[in-house]
Structures are given as structure tokens and as C-alpha cells.
């Protein structure tokens, strides 16, 4: 049975374990119909021209974990930003892990989607926000919606700021020879609320994992959301991240994506600016090698006037790795005085690495500033010689140049300990110790 058929037929089993009379289930039922009609996206579709899901569909993934696993904090501590105190929402093989988590209801809700979707006290919020910004026809999003049951639920009321950053971590233990996970996150920042989120997916064995994640983020008037995606999984793990952001007047949402590990990574980040004076920022560093594949698809839809968007993606591709950047900016006719900036710079370190980069601007307003730039280059030989002539060996010199190329993306990371961690991951990925703390 192919993966699509398996998923569709698993929906029946899924229904045995959820409340089918909950209105949420009507949303799921609609969604599975859409997925059943559309199936997995193929390379014939423009948006999937350079990313193939064919080989993943040949793997016999378990749709539900066969048994529950527990992990000890000491064994997985290194995956947390353990230098600082954080709220933690942790899942093991898709199941909430209470011993690794630290949730709260103290003025803010930092807890579980499974509670939010089933408990009456959350109904009012779920009615307003659940599946409201996520696509209702993109097939992988609807697949996730159909199986939506668990994930992180974060609700920050008006004028509130959680005491500490929030970490969302999904571990997979390899209990199943191949496991598909579909976390569903809902993040709501009410007026003037603020939060910082660090998200990570981490497989602990070499068994195959496919994660198809959907995150909905709602930022009300003047809210601030900083979202950091740390993608450094092992080479048997693949991730499709579908993130949808709805912004209102004066809100600032920043998403940083650090893509270093994983077999196949697809990031679909979609921003909708439903208000004025909004700032949407997307930044990314991709450093991959071997046969890794990273695909960034971004969308910013400027719907109202006087808003800004900033995109800055840096990519370094070694060995046989492949990269994709597709940045779409839509400026509606009424969205005058829009400032939209997009930058994608790439370095190919090997003759066999590939990057396909495409800015896609659809501008219907006439008084806007939109700029975009894509570059693809190699390391500068003259700069390499300069560093070598100072006694820095070629390998370290190359690494230093690559680090220098990417590191301005880190300037906007507002959690210093996270910045240190990312620097270490970069140094590890480049295989060097540069004699100073990156």
C-alpha cells in the first residue's frame, strides 16, 4: 500500500480515538477529503519542481507509534538550550512527555494542543483560531489538519509576556522502524503580548522519520513573536514544516530557520499582513552537505498599506547537497507604501552541489519599495590566500570565510545562549575549531 492510501485508511482508525462529535472533527473530515483528492504533491507542480517526495512515499511509515517511550532528561539534555530556564513542551514519538516538559497556566497558557482541542474552557479560542490561517487546500497542510490532535498550544493574553522562552521539542526514539509524525501547533499572541519560541525536531536513532508539521501563529495588534527553528536532525529524518502567520496592526513576527541537518527539509513559511505598520521578518542559515536537501519556500502577502517585510537567507552547499529558495512577495493594489526586501545569497563549495533560487514578486500597488537579490558564488580565492598567508590552514580558512558569509543572520537572534548554540552548531558543521568562541 502506498503512503497516501495508508494515511487515508488510517483515518478510520484515528476516528476511533477522537471525539467525532467535536466540531473540530468536521474540520478534520473536510481536510482528509482534500488530501484524498490531491495526494502528495508531485514534481509536476511548480512549487515542488525541485523537491521530490517520491522516495519518502516508498517507506512504510507507521502512522501511529506502536508503543510509548520515555526518555530521561540527562540523555537528551544537550538538545535543550539548557543554559537558560525555559518552558518546555516536549513530545516523544508524538506523545506528550510530562517528565521532560514544563508547561504553565500561570497567566498564560503554554500547554498541549490535545487539551485545547478537547476541553470546553479552550473552545472559544479554538473556534476563533484553529485552522483559520492554515491553508485549506494545500495537500500536506490538510493532511496534517486531518490528523491534528497533538502539539504545542500557546496562548499569551493581552499585555502579557511569559517569564521565559518556550522550547518545543519533538523526539523520536526509533521504536518503530519508520515513523510519521504530524504535530500541530497553535500560537496566539494577543494585543501587546510578546514571546520567544525555540522549536526543534530530533531523531535519536537511524530509523526513518518523516515529520509533517503545521504551525499557526496569530499576532494581534502590536504583539511580538520571535520564533527560532533549529533544524539539525540526523540524516534519516525528514521534515516538512508548514507555518502560517496572521498579523494584525503594528505586530512584529520574526522567524529564524537554521538548517544544518536532516535528509530532506522543506520549509513553507507563509505570512499574511492583515493590518498596517506590520513587520514580518524571515531569516535563515542553511549549511548542508552529502546528499542533504533543503527547500525554503516563503510567502509574504502584503494586504494592507504601510507594512514591511524582510527576508535574508544564506546558504552554503557542499558535496552533493541541493538547495531551493523560492521567495514569493505579493503586494495588493491597496498595499501602498509597502517596503519589501528579500535577499538570498549562496555559496557552492563543491562542483556537485546545486541551488535553485527564485524571487517571485507580484506587485499590484504603484507606490512601493521592493528589492530582491539572489547570488550564487564560490569562496573568494584571494580571501582564502589572504587568510592562509596569515598561517590559517586552508580548511579553517574556508570555514572562517563561510562563517563570515552567514553570520550577519545571527545578529537578530535575541537569546544570547541560543546564539552561542547556533555558533557551535555552525562550527561543528564546518568541522573546525577556529580558536575563538564563535
Amino acid at each position, binding site marked *: 500500500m502506498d503512503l497516501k492510501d495508508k494515511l487515508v485508511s488510517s483515518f478510520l482508525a484515528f476516528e476511533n480515538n477522537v471525539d467525532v462529535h467535536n466540531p473540530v472533527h468536521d474540520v478534520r473530515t473536510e481536510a482528509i477529503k482534500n488530501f484524498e483528492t490531491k495526494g502528495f504533491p508531485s514534481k509536476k507542480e511548480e512549487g515542488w519542481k525541485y523537491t521530490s517526495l517520491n522516495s519518502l512515499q516508498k517507506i512504510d511509515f507507521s502512522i501511529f507509534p506502536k508503543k510509548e517511550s520515555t526518555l530521561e532528561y540527562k540523555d537528551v539534555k544537550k538538545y535543550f538550550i539548557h543554559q537558560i530556564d525555559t518552558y518546555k513542551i516536549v513530545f516523544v514519538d508524538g506523545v506528550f512527555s510530562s517528565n521532560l516538559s514544563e508547561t504553565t497556566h500561570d497567566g498564560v497558557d503554554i500547554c498541549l494542543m490535545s487539551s485545547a482541542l478537547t476541553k470546553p474552557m479552550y473552545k472559544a479560542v479554538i473556534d476563533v483560531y484553529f485552522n483559520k490561517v492554515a491553508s485549506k487546500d494545500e495537500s500536506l497542510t490538510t493532511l496534517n489538519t486531518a490528523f491534528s490532535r497533538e502539539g504545542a498550544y500557546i496562548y499569551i493574553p493581552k499585555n502579557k509576556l511569559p517569564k521565559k522562552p518556550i522550547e518545543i521539542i519533538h523526539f523520536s526514539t526509533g521504536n518503530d522502524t519508520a515513523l510519521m509524525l504530524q504535530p500541530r501547533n497553535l500560537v496566539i499572541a494577543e494585543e501587546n503580548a510578546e514571546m520567544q519560541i525555540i522549536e526543534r525536531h530530533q531523531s535519536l536513532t537511524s530509523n526513518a522519520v518523516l515529520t509533517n508539521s503545521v504551525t499557526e501563529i496569530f499576532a494581534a495588534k502590536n504583539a511580538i513573536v520571535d520564533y527560532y527553528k533549529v533544524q539539525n536532525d540526523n540524516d534519516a529524518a525528514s521534515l516538512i514544516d508548514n507555518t502560517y502567520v496572521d498579523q494584525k496592526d503594528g505586530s512584529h513576527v520574526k522567524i529564524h530557520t537554521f538548517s544544518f541537518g536532516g535528509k530532506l527539509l522543506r520549509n513553507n513559511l507563509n505570512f499574511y499582513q492583515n493590518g498596517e505598520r506590520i513587520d514580518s521578518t524571515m531569516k535563515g542559515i542553511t549549511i548542508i552537505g552529502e546528499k542533504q536537501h533543503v527547500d525554503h519556500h516563503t510567502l509574504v502577502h502584503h494586504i494592507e498599506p504601510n507594512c514591511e517585510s524582510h527576508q535574508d537567507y544564506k546558504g552554503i552547499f557542499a558535496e552533493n547537497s541541493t538547495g531551493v529558495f523560492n521567495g514569493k512577495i505579493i503586494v495588493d493594489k491597496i498595499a501602498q507604501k509597502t517596503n519589501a526586501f528579500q535577499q538570498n545569497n549562496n555559496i557552492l563549495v563543491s562542483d556537485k552541489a546545486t541551488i535553485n533560487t527564485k524571487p517571485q514578486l507580484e506587485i499590484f500597488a504603484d507606490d512601493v519599495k521592493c528589492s530582491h537579490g539572489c547570488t550564487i558564488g564560490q569562496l*573568494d*580565492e*584571494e*580571501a582564502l*590566500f*589572504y*587568510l*592562509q*598567508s*596569515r*598561517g*590559517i*590552514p*586552508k580548511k*579553517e*580558512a574556508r570555514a*572562517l*570565510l563561510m*562563517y*563570515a*558569509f*552567514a*553570520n*550577519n543572520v545571527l545578529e537578530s537572534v535575541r537569546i544570547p545562549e541560543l546564539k552561542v548554540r547556533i555558533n557551535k552548531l555552525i562550527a561543528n558543521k564546518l568541522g573546525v575549531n*577556529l*580558536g*575563538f568562541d564563535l
Partner: protein
Amino acid sequence: MLKIKDLHASVEGKGILKGINLEVGAGEVHAIMGPNGSGKSTLASVIAGNETYEVTKGDIFLNGENIEDLSPEERAHNGVFLSFQYPVEIPGVSVTNFMKTAINESRKAKGLEDMPAKDMLKLIRDKSELLEIDRKFLSRSLNEGFSGGEKKRNEIFQMAMLEPKLAILDETDSGLDIDALRIVANGVNKLKSKDNAIVIITHYQRLLEYIVPDYVHVLHNGKIVKSGTKELALELEEKGYDWIKQEAAV
């Protein structure tokens, strides 16, 4: 210290150096002068190991060892330093971090531990004072947005930090105003000792008023066509290079 024998080098098949012979002893300062395109910068790059140039014939010895097969970093570890005519801008790496990496990599190559942070700071402080470099300057990205003078001063600062045995200064005076020239020359003079050697590559005599050479060589069309003492530099300043070209043609 440095011995160059019948050195030929080319870039993309085009011969640039056509039989250079040069000997530089410890404690000596040599100036290599010559018109544009005579091969001065190529000679500097080839000594430092730039792989853009192919050595087609001849040998370079450093302290008796043939360095032909050494990489640029290995040459640096053996005491070769090149002050670049056009220092490369490296955004994202501060001057301080760059120097830490350079020094510790050289130490690693010699089997030494990293320099303790305290010693490193002191070294950086002492050497930046020597070149009259402001502390703020050290946290800026390497050469990024530096003026011509700042770049050259930063080159000599690096030389002071790395304490090379053989320093080659490639057009270090170009782009310097008179104050910067004085500071740079003063720095170089303080670094000069009986154990190291300095090769100054320059088009003009100006720098040589401040760093007085023991020997002056004139490079023309890939060959040293005339050698002499510092008086030769003055003569060149006065008469230009045409008479050298004519003499060489005879």
C-alpha cells in the same frame, strides 16, 4: 634567510617572472623597485605561496629549505609574512578574532597550546599601541570599510602580532597620507632586528626615506636588471625608469 635562484613564474600560461636571482640575509632591508607591470607583486605573491601563480622553473629557499612544496600557511608558520597591496575585506570576522585564529593556528602547527586569553589581550594591546590603532578598530570586521591607510596600518599590525622572519611589504606606502606613512614606517622600524629581514616592494622612493634599505634592486620585465645601495633609489626617483629600460634593452 631568503635565497631565490633563477625563478620563473607564470599566470595562465603567461610568463611574468623570467629568471629572478636574489639573496636576502638576516638583519637586512631590501627594496625592490620597478615600473608598473614589471612583476614586483607577482614576486611577492610567489614567495608567499599564492597558487594562482605557477612556478615553472627555479627555486626559493628559506633558511636553506626549499619551500616550493609548502602551502601558504606552512610558509607563514616558517616565518614568511606578506603585507598585501590590496588587503581583502572579510565582513563578519573581527580583527581581534582573526588575529586570535592566526596566532593560535601558527602555535598549533608548532605543537604549542593556544595562547592564554590574558597574554593574547596584552599582545594585542601592545602591538596596537605600536601602530597607534584605536581599540574600537579591533572589534570591527577585518578591513571592511577601512580607509586605504587603515588597511595598511592593519597589515603592519598583523606583522607585529605574527613576528615574521621574512616580511614582504607589497606597496605598503600606496594610499597612505604622510602621517599614516610615518606611523607605518615607525612600526616597521621597531620590528626590524638582526634576526629578521624585510623586503619592501615599491614604485616610489617615498617610503624608503623612512625605512632605509641596505640594498635596492630594480625589476624590469620579470628580471632584476640592476642592484645597488639606497642611492640607486634616489637616482630612480630623479630620472624615472626609462633609462633602466633602455639600459636593459641594450
